């Protein structure tokens, strides 16, 4: 492995004078022995799946439970009809993240980035930034490699599973990955990508995984909305030269330890947090009948 943590990843890029995405591509070639073109093409197929999920979600989908669906359409309509508060680019990002997660909740086809519950952040940021930055297809594929490099570090040093580390491990990781990749696509340095990752993840620490009725719907879809918007704001902070006082790897370590000390009720078991609210329980009963909601 060329890198075990973020500091080694950044160091490798700086020493060799290459981008973070390039480090990830070279690492993948070394690890799998597959030709570079094949690896690039495989990531290209994932990119196409993501684009299709965004498109499907923007047309409007509904989940079987009826808990989620249609919000991506609402956001786009709002943007088209009136002056928004946070600006059209940010809301475009958010609507595309929401679109992806609505498709996921409806048992549609998505690409997990790094998980299904957090699948909206990376494509939301990528396809939301597309009209602003006009990236080439190669740059868009590279965005996914950069995201993957940071995701791999988190997965190997902490966790990307809500059941093991709470939502901070899922949407937190996804948002961090997206912000780091956004910095690279916008022309920032490898170190600035690391700063964006740290700033995003710091603000996701402690986030619990408390899905209503155990479904990847409430609050997952909206957490992706907020994760993707944080990714954009953190990327801008990093590009402005703002740095994280706590190094990225230590933030990842903190995330891991917080996940370890989190109560099992708050780790994807649907026994605590929003799932345990009166309305959360009521919704669970409606979806599955009395057995599920009564505890």
């Amino acid at each position, binding site marked *: *492995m060329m890198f*075990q943590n973020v500091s080694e990843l950044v160091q490798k890029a700086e020493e060799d004078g290459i981008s973070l995405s390039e480090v*990830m591509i070279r*690492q*993948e070639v070394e*690890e*799998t*022995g597959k030709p570079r073109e094949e*690896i690039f093409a*495989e*990531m290209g*197929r*994932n990119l196409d*799946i993501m684009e299709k999920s965004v498109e499907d979600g923007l047309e409007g989908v509904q*989940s079987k439970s009826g808990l989620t669906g249609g919000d991506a359409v609402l956001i786009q309509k709002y943007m088209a009809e009136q002056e928004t508060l946070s600006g059209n680019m940010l809301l475009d990002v958010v609507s595309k993240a929401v679109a992806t997660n609505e*498709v*996921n*909740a*409806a*048992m*549609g*086809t*998505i*690409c*997990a*980035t*790094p*998980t*299904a*519950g957090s*699948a909206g952040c*990376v494509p939301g940021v990528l396809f939301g930034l597309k009209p602003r930055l006009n990236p080439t297809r190669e740059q868009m594929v590279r965005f*996914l*490699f950069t*995201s*993957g*490099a940071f*995701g*791999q570090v988190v*997965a*190997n040093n902490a*966790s*990307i*599973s*809500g*059941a*093991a580390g709470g939502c901070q*491990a899922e949407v937190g990781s996804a948002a961090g*990955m997206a912000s780091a990749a956004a910095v690279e696509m916008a022309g920032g340095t490898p170190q600035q990508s690391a700063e964006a990752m740290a700033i995003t993840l710091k603000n996701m620490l402690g986030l619990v995984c408390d*899905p209503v009725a*155990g*479904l*990847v719907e409430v609050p997952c879809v909206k957490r992706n909305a907020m994760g993707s918007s944080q990714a954009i704001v953190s990327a801008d902070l990093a590009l402005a030269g703002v740095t994280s006082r706590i190094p990225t790897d230590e933030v990842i370590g903190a995330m891991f330890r917080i996940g370890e000390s989190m109560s*099992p009720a708050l*780790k*994807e*078991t*649907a026994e605590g947090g929003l799932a345990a609210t009166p309305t959360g329980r009521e919704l669970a009963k409606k979806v*599955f009948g009395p057995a*599920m909601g009564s505890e």
Partner: protein
Amino acid sequence: MKFRSVFDVIGPVMIGPSSSHTAGAARIGKMARELFGRKPEWAKIHLYGSFAKTYQGHGTDVALIGGILGFDTYDERIRDARTLAQDENVDIEIIEEDGSSEHPNTARIELGDEESTFELVGISIGGGKAEITELNGFELRLSGSSPAILVMHNDRFGAIASVTNVLADYKINIGHMEVSRREEGKEAMMVIETDEKIPNDVMDQLNDCDHILQVVTISE
């Protein structure tokens, strides 16, 4: 290093809604099917921890059943796996277990037909990745991210060498290997992860080696 490839993190392409509870479950089911080697007549699926608590909402049950029917994580037939299992005369039983398990997302799958039965324990470790932790009572670690051979054998000297010699003859490199046994001199098992797929004639030769009881393979 559990996550070695970038596609462990950017991927898999899958049917929603949960990478650990749907895609990871489908992978555990598919590994069980491949190791059993054929369509079973019945499957008993025991669910533990978060799997037991949330399987209905995540489609964990249909994903595991879909995997047992041989479907990949992105196969849209997963949604109708229960009906499809009925159509194919595979008897399915889902059992919610109260007991604790080491990992929150754990499934124990028993498969069987007139000929034999088979049992494994799989865990879904996040992002759609899964591992097999127990097979027919033997503890092991099998990720399914490389091709692998599982060899049930008698615990005798030379058994391991005879297997590795065959692999060496075919220039197949071993990436990871572990051996465990129930008791000295009794049944034992080898798990061998390789860099390339195992051709059928290699499997035949392995089956003919001394002290070898059964050889099964799992592709990537």
